[in-house]
């Protein structure tokens, strides 16, 4: 359970060092990306002028305030509240994010699925869990919105944040095939029968949902 301090961008070697239950703190650039951003990039052929190679992306659509451009607000936006959304909706974009854009780290909440695990292993990547619903705290780690692209999709633009002391984030899926979410999910499914018995469900008259 090592702690890693990364200044982005990072190398494939660095990301392959990570193991689940390690923690990571980030400094430097962090890119905000979301459903619409990735639908437009990967389904509708739009491209970004940002170089994402070796970088970390976070599943977010922030609350921002429009302000005049200045050294403090180079993109003309002040961050009001930056938090993290549920990752699994964006599962099918993990591979193209990595293979076409070179992204190494995905930060989100709730976890990603098996296809993402496979992509992390094959291409060298990891998923870092942030605590969902703790955006007030997360915002204190964001120094500035440095740049923004695809801003017609606002708030689901492609945001470039500058972060300091962003974390600790928990390595929840690594490049070695481990996933805390699948471990916990499998254990919970194993507990199901006992839990139903504790409720007095004697015969399973009802079909399980899946």
């Amino acid at each position, binding site marked *: 359970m090592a702690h890693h301090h990364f200044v982005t961008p990072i190398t494939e070697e660095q990301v392959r060092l990570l193991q689940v239950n390690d923690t990571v703190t980030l400094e430097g650039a962090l890119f905000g990306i979301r459903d619409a951003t990735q639908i437009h990039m990967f389904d509708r052929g739009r491209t970004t002028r940002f170089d994402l190679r070796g970088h970390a992306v976070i599943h977010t659509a922030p609350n921002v305030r429009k302000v005049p451009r200045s050294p403090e607000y180079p993109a003309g936006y002040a961050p009001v509240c930056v*938090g993290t959304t549920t990752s699994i909706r964006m599962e099918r974009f993990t591979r193209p994010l990595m293979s076409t854009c070179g992204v190494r780290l995905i930060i989100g909440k709730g976890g990603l699925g098996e296809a993402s695990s496979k992509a992390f292993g094959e291409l060298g990547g990891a998923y870092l869990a942030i605590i969902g619903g703790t955006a007030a705290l997360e915002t204190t780690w964001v120094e500035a919105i440095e740049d923004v692209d695809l801003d017609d999709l606002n708030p689901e633009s492609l945001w470039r944040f500058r972060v300091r002391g962003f974390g600790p984030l928990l390595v929840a899926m690594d490049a070695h095939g481990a996933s805390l979410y699948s471990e916990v*999910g499998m254990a919970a499914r194993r507990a*199901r029968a006992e839990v139903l018995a504790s*409720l007095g469900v004697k015969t399973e008259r009802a079909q399980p949902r899946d």
Partner: protein
Amino acid sequence: MDVDLKSVEEAAKELYIRALKILPDDIKQGFATLQAGETHATAKSVLDTMVRNIAVAEETRNLLCQDTGIPIYNVILGRDVVVDGMGLKAAIRRGCERATREHPLRSSVVHPISRANAHTSTGREVPVIHIDFSDAPERLEIEMIPKGSGSENNSWLRMAIPAEGVDAIRTFVVDCVLEAGGKTCPPTIVGVGVGGTADLCVHLAKRAATRPLGSHCDDPDGAKLEEALSTAVNRLGVGPQGLGGDSTAFAVHVELAATHITMNPVAVNMQCHSARRARATFTPSGVDYGF
């Protein structure tokens, strides 16, 4: 009591912002209870971070969570309250738009097909406004709930049949909690609707999910069911954020309605740990804010 629509507009604005920033006391108490009972190391640290975030939000006067949600306003009109109904709905909508523009807040509301965002947090049929009545004299209450998508995306309805009995309800709730996993930002309030028609059943689940912690279903069978389910779902080990632990749910809440002889509907609607709500109470002496 005559209700001034300008003050309704102000309250609708204020309620949206307050709800996003200040967590109700019963939810804070719910965190303390979970922290005291949690045995899993990662889960303890996740709960501590959530509690720290509540304090940071209050200190920095910031939003608890970036998800401004779908705005819901529940209006309860007491006796002898004189107000123009259409004017009331329009005032709530204006207040909601002003909160979005003036704070500013992220507008999380889009057209369902074009996905166009008007950047007002409003659209067709949104904000959701429910109007009901009470016996309280000269009293108007407006409750505001910003319903986040992480929890709302975990909503289910099952039209079970009488032959499946209460076991259908118990099994369904457990399976929904399993399916939600960490996606719904646990610890949650699991809202369960039992009975009614399909639409009423889902509405009951939402009402259950947004009920204060510590409150109980006012039907004795419903109260027994929610108590048993509350214990049961926390034995699954999903834990806060789906990372494992004892604290999967603050509670399971059940709301009931009568149903048809051939029907046995059950619905689940989840409330995430950022269980936000705010309330304005209008009386002849003015407007009071609370939860």
